């Protein structure tokens, strides 16, 4: 690390702060900048996917590939805006918006069955389909053994179906009621 060649000016900090809607304090932005420079080893002004994956804690996360698609090539201002959903000052609405964006990989404002299925696959690996489940002897029905069936069933119970396209307000309805814990602390020296 050594010397960060480009230091942040007060003007830069204020610009970044505005861009992220004051989600972070000025001190936090300076810390984030140090971190950004630390991750951006080749000094290109953005952190590449490889550089993110060199953080083992990030690489073992099941959603890392999805997040990389959102993170790749971001400059510092956009990086801070990305993280703003995790600030304690962010609203529940902003957090849900972030989650929605993670699901909506093509960015068209609609989350399809396949989008949700993909995320479920990321989170469970092959562990659901590999489960050997027995047949329910009483009802003589096979018990659910794969993600598709799990998702379909749960969706139908919530009043949707396989063809439903969920939009932002649906997510707010589903996720908004219970407390969403999505906060990260930025270490400040």
């Amino acid at each position, binding site marked *: 690390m050594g010397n960060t060649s480009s230091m942040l000016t007060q003007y830069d900090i204020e610009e970044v702060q505005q861009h992220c809607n004051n989600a972070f304090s000025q001190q936090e932005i300076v810390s984030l900048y140090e971190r950004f420079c630390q991750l951006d080893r080749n000094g290109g002004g953005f952190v590449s996917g490889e550089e993110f994956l060199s953080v083992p804690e990030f690489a073992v996360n099941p959603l890392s590939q999805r997040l990389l698609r959102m993170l790749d090539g971001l400059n510092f201002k956009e990086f801070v805006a990305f993280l703003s959903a995790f600030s304690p000052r962010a609203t529940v609405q902003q957090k849900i918006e972030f989650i929605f964006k993670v699901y909506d990989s093509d960015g068209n404002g609609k989350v399809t069955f396949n989008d*949700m299925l993909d995320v479920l696959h990321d989170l469970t690996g092959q562990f659901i389909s590999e489960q050997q489940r027995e047949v329910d002897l009483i009802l003589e029905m096979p018990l659910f053994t794969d993600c598709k069936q*799990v998702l379909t069933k749960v969706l139908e119970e919530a009043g949707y179906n396989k063809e439903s396209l969920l939009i932002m307000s649906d997510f707010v309805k589903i996720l908004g009621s219970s407390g969403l814990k999505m906060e990260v602390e930025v270490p400040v020296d």
Partner: protein
Amino acid sequence: MNSSEGKLKSSSSELDLDRPNIEDYLPSGSSIQEPHGKLRLRDLLDISPALTEAAGAIVDDSFTRCFKLNPPEPWNWNVYLFPLWCCGVVFRYLILFPMRALVLTIGWIIFLSCFIPVHFLLKGNDNLRKKMERALVELICSFFVASWTGVVKYHGPRPSMRPKQVFVANHTSMIDFIILEQMTAFAVIMQKHPGWVGLLQSTILESVGCIWFNRSEAKDREIVTRKLREHSQGADNNPLLIFPEGTCVNNQYSVMFKKGAFELGCTVCPIAIKYNKIFVDAFWNSRKQSFTMHLLQLMTSWAVVCDVWYLEPQNLRPGETPIEFAERIRDIISVRAGLKKVPWDGYLKYSRPSPKHRERKQQSFAESVLRGLELEEK
């Protein structure tokens, strides 16, 4: 230690066997929300725990902290102190450095003029030759240490040369080896380096019985394990010094120890090394600096001050696995040297983590989803 920058290969399953359960170290509680009670859409859609963990890792992670250089606070910031600092710089670069370079050159001349004759002329008389070569290597290491004005305080009884005994130490820089070597001629196991260091390795260090390995070669591991075993069994060989972290860490943290040193069936003697940061930060970040630059940096600093503790030898306890043994020794060394332990394998500097960790998380989430389903079916 020139690793290919940016080319990370996925680690082989061998790396798995080397480390105990990381879950024991990371904060408990799964990263993925475990649904309680009946499974609802909300439980499946709420990915906030996994996202929070990912964001947490982006903002700060324990692995990168191990390799972070901690520059000392600048104290030369006012009109009175700044000229003082400038005088210091002048003194260090124009007076100390040439003096030290001279000392080192003299040392090398003496060393080479003794070593080369001894090496070739005493070929027949192996015992005497080995003794003299050992003493000479200790001598040149002392010269090196003097060239940085090394002030080393050794604590604990000096290691004795016994068979079936290995020494392990925490690793901050290649100078660890030099500092330890000046007291006792160890045979060390090191990564083969390019350049002049490699030359030294293949000529002079061969004589004390050093073992080389190449991190990037997978087959190398078996050969090295075999060599380690052979060396440790021999009564005549110099005591073996191993740095089980496998890479240089910044002297504030310790990464996981590789189990290779702990399954040789030998007594393990831990050595803890702690550098005093006030004078110079001795951490060698091999990705940022070549060894030559690192040495030059040390030679233009005021001093290298460190403490070396030779700790009580330990044996494998009945029922203890080599990995547990390695962790126990790591504990002993970390406590002594004031290092914080992290659950990461040092080789993650060069390769990606094994998919096993991600799979464990996925498995626990999958199980809780299925449990939630089961609950309503009953």
